[in-house]
């Protein structure tokens, strides 16, 4: 506005009123447009911030876990009655029984069968694993009395975190008054404490929320993405180089081009069906395996990579090609010595975007059995596995309330995974970037 007023005062010839009005209207239009743009960005950013903060807020409880210290008698006759010292026999001992004994000893007044069951529910049904791991690490402790921290059950965990309100009437509360009393018994003696929930990262899936972790899904995602990268990057880049640089421009290449563009718009579940029919039914590849998942996602990623690579190759100025041709470089030398290195940042960006898309994909993996309850962490591309987005979906479907924060935590992990993938992309783009 200041510009117009000064120029008006400076200019010798006075402007007609219509001219001034028109000028003002133009400035107003510009201001309006700027406002709309800012509003659009503010709304988008607001939604994003709301989404992220709500997910992160909901996920916080899942990153901690409560443990209760129990006095456990590592009875020789339960663990290794024949003194075999055989790890397999020790492994198969009734560890949960030791925990139950410990709880009964702590509360001798509990007699009825129903009460006992409630008492046992104080700790995780997988708590025996902690005792087992302790004994396998310290076999000399067999026969002695130890105080070990074992995870509480999911409802007790939620109660301690304040996600179950202990002031509610007993009938509305997942934790009974008796359980509250037992818990308070331990709390009063300082035997309940909160730790970082390593289980979230070290263990595979489980029906018990306090035992469930993302390790299986994370490794599954990683293996699947590696397969996708190994298959789609070389094929996609080669196809793009041929189409862009070497192929004659005729009807056939035209048809191929159109179809590649169409392929990018095919719903991803169709690729899943294709994978089921071709890879699993025809080629007899294993179900639920990262190998098949990676191949299916490759089909999805290929068009993205081809399109990005072609665009990137086409953006290299012709002067560079002419310069190389002018000194007698062959077509292949022009491509591999000059064009491809310059196009690399764009190619990598396209590839990583394609991979990030694939890493967040669930629909095609549904069809090939990767949406499955798999406890073990996969060891290679043919072992059974699931992936992070599928894990999120399965946890979200579980009835236990404790899976709610777990689901959010899994989303946070997936987002961090994608973020690190994108950060890698930016790193490589900067590294390969050259000016001309």
């Amino acid at each position: 506005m200041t510009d117009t007023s000064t120029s008006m005062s400076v200019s010798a010839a006075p402007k007609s009123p219509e001219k001034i009005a028109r000028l003002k209207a133009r400035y107003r239009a510009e201001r309006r447009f700027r406002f709309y743009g800012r509003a659009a960005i503010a709304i988008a950013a607001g939604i994003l911030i709301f989404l992220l903060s709500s997910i992160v807020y909901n996920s916080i409880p899942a990153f901690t876990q409560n443990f209760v210290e129990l006095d456990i008698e590592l009875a020789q006759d339960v663990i290794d009655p024949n003194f075999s010292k055989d790890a397999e026999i020790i492994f198969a001992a009734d560890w949960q029984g030791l925990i139950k004994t410990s709880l009964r000893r702590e509360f001798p007044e509990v007699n009825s069968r129903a009460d006992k069951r409630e008492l046992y529910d104080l700790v995780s049904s997988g708590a025996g694993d902690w005792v087992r791991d302790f004994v396998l690490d310290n076999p000399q402790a067999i026969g002695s009395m130890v105080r070990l921290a074992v995870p509480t059950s999911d409802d007790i965990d939620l109660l301690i975190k304040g996600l179950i309100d202990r002031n509610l009437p007993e009938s509305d509360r997942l934790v009974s008054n008796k359980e509250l009393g037992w818990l308070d018994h331990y709390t009063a003696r300082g035997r309940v404490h909160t730790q970082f929930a390593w289980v979230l990262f070290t263990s595979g899936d489980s029906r018990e929320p306090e035992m469930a972790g993302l390790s299986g899904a994370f490794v599954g995602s990683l293996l699947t993405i590696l397969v996708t990268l190994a298959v789609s990057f070389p094929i996609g880049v080669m196809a793009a180089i041929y189409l862009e640089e070497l192929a004659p421009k005729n009807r056939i290449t035209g048809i191929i081009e159109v179809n590649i563009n169409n392929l990018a718009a095919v719903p991803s579940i169709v690729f899943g069906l294709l994978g089921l029919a071709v890879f699993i039914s025809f080629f007899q590849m294993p179900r639920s395996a990262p190998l098949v998942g990676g191949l299916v996602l490759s089909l999805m990623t290929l068009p993205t990579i081809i399109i990005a690579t072609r665009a990137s190759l086409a953006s290299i100025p012709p002067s560079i090609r002419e310069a190389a041709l002018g000194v007698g470089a062959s077509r292949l030398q022009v491509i591999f010595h000059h064009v491809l290195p310059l196009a690399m940042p764009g190619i990598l960006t396209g590839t990583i975007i394609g991979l990030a898309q694939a890493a967040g994909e669930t629909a095609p993996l549904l069809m090939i059995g990767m949406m499955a309850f798999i406890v073990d962490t996969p060891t290679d591309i043919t072992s059974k596995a699931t992936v992070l987005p599928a894990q999120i979906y399965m946890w979200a479907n579980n009835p236990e309330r404790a899976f709610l924060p777990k689901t959010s935590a899994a989303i946070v992990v997936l987002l961090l995974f994608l973020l690190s993938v994108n950060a890698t992309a930016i790193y490589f783009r900067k590294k390969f970037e050259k000016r001309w």
Partner: protein
Amino acid sequence: MNYENENKIQSSGVQVYYGENRALHGIDLNIGANEVTALIGPSGCGKSTFLRCINRMNDVIDGCRVEGSVFIDGDNIYADHMDVVELRARVGMVFQKPNPFPKSVYDNVAYGPRIHGLAPTKEALDHMVETSLKRAGLWQEVHDRLSDSGSSLSGGQQQRLCIARAIAVNPEVVLMDEPCSALDPIATAVIEELIEELKSEYTIVIVTHSMQQASRVSQKTAYFHLGNVVEFGDTKQIFSNPKNSQTEAYISGRIG
């Protein structure tokens, strides 16, 4: 020196089509060895197209078709047995806009010798780079920053780098497509001096829009008009006493 005053390049009946459109209507031109031949004419007259016929750079343009033949030392470069890559090593080219590779000064010059396997050792390559840069009159300015990016040089230096790059593979002919059109008068003067020196070793064909430049650097001049060579002869004669009225109109500034 054997080819002094002999015809290095002979074109006969060269016609070029861009799709349906005929850009050159049968060019017959004899270009002498170790002299500078200037191609002048208004925009779109086909002089650049003709220049690009001499090292078959038109091959890479989609829909471009060349008829007729161009002989270099009696070899038809449009014959089937002719290897384009080898031809372009014999016929170097300098473009309108300086287009150094986005690599170091050294790598820019060394690229040609490397791909043609001209330098067996690192020392030989170093020597080649140095000689080429010296011949292009750039050595003094860049000898202490050979590892800097070629695009960090000034426009005139970049163009001399491109000349060094072209002569590093030891061509017989150097084609220049308006090499000074993107340069200021001082950088232009440097390039023109360079052309004067280079002609003792190379046959030079230069396309230019500047009549002064054509008269300064060339011994022979061809005037192109609408895809035909209207007049070809000694530069002095063309500029002082053109035989054709169109040529006269162009060089006197009445058309063009």
